[in-house]
């Protein structure tokens, strides 16, 4: 089993929103960043993976097993941080330990308390007294203390200050030091993912519009900036999207090296996930 997560043709209909034929493949040992605007379908996809929502169609395989048929087995090896969903806030980190050790076979109290100490989290204070950053760190500690093989994280860095974000990203990178472990992480804060994610999957309005390795996207893709005259000379098949700005044209190309060999346009920047997102959503492409 090389792929830790495989989603085939996932569809889900809500009033006014639809997840359409979502396909995602996450190989073992890798981090996949799942990006998109708020409301693009990130949380819905994650909820489908975990079988939290109902009435979706398509096939979801985790560790090569069906997410519904082998639910118990799969969930023993998954750790989650979900946006806004957690233990009731009157419980304390200590309480969580005594609950979890009876829920997960592999719950590691020693490891959990080590994380609490590392993150400077109190053991006996109710969750509701913790700051937002501390709470997120607690959620992460809970998610990784049963030695899961797959972490599913929905916006784990939202609301964290830069220092805390850094710490959290360190934890994730530490987690995949084990080649068997993978992370599926959704975020609209793209800078977090830009460096650490191996794969980037981009969802917009319920559809996957891009799923590539980080290397292809951030090193090969390019944003060409040129004048109108230059733009008109460019073969339409040589770019993915373009956007007309006030003083220039911005063009998204798949390979900046190839492009620069063909055309003598000097301004080709590497893309950042942020401007990639903007160009993919706001850019045009006439066919």
């Amino acid at each position: 089993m090389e792929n830790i997560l495989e989603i085939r043709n996932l569809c889900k209909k809500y009033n006014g929103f639809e997840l359409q034929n979502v396909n995602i493949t996450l190989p073992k040992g890798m981090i996949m960043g799942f990006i998109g605007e708020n409301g693009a379908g990130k949380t819905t996809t994650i909820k489908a993976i975990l079988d939290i929502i109902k009435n979706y169609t398509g096939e979801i395989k985790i560790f090569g097993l069906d997410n519904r048929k082998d639910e118990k087995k799969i969930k023993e090896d998954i750790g989650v941080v979900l946006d806004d969903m957690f233990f009731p806030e009157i419980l304390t980190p200590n309480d969580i330990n005594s609950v979890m050790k009876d829920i997960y076979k592999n719950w590691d109290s020693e490891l959990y308390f080590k994380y609490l100490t590392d993150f400077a989290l109190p053991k006996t204070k109710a969750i509701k007294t913790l700051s937002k950053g501390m709470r997120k760190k607690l959620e992460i500690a809970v998610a990784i203390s049963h030695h899961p093989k797959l972490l599913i994280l929905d916006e784990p860095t939202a609301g964290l200050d830069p220092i805390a974000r850094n710490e959290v990203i360190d934890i994730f990178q530490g987690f995949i030091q084990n080649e068997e472990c993978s992370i599926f992480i959704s975020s609209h804060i793209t800078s977090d993912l830009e460096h650490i994610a191996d794969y980037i999957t981009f969802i917009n309005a319920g559809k996957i519009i891009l799923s590539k390795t980080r290397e292809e996207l951030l090193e090969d893709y390019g944003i060409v900036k040129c004048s109108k005259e230059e733009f008109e000379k460019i073969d339409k098949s040589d770019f993915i999207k373009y956007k007309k700005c006030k003083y220039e044209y911005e063009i998204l190309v798949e390979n900046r090296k190839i492009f620069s060999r063909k055309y003598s346009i000097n301004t080709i920047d590497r893309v950042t996930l942020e401007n990639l997102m903007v160009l993919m959503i706001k850019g045009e492409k006439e066919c």
Partner: protein
Amino acid sequence: MLGFIKKDLLMIKSNIKILAILLLIYLVMAFQGQMSLSFLLPFLSVMVMMSTFSYDSYNKWDAYVISLPNGRKNSVKAKYLATIIIIILTTIIITILSFAVSYVKTNIIDFGSITVTIFGCLFATILLQSFIYPAMYKFGPEKARIVLMVIVFCVAIAGGIVTTYFDLSPLIKILEFINVYWLIVIPIAMILMLYISYKISERIYFKKEI
């Protein structure tokens, strides 16, 4: 499974101070007035369990729990088992206190009447909870609270109408018959009610779009 039950009990434990104060106030009232301690039983156990529903829903535990192994299957079951534990605990506490109060006040323990009231209250508690849990899972704690009030109100009205306008002598005969066997019939009825309620709640939760 044990973990999920523990979670509810730990939540209740974290509110133990407030509960103790409440109990104390009630105890004082029981000493002074005519108030029977037994009525605390439905009140206390329903309130305690309702608060766990509220916290669950506030922090979306119902969705989070599904990400845990056997979460969907066990969380409803655990809620009912926790309820049973809480009912047993409160019943024991209330029974002991009732005897104590009665002894201090009158120097005799009216074993029979106390047991009967407690038994009645226990029945009411389980009846109430059996009705309200499916509503909790269906509508969430906010709306379920309204449902609870509507039920209580309707029962009161219906009771009023029935007792004023209908001849209840045949029913009383049935009750007298039950009276003989109440030690068997009522516990069975209680278990049955809870079980049916559990099955309904489970169905609702399994079908629910979270």
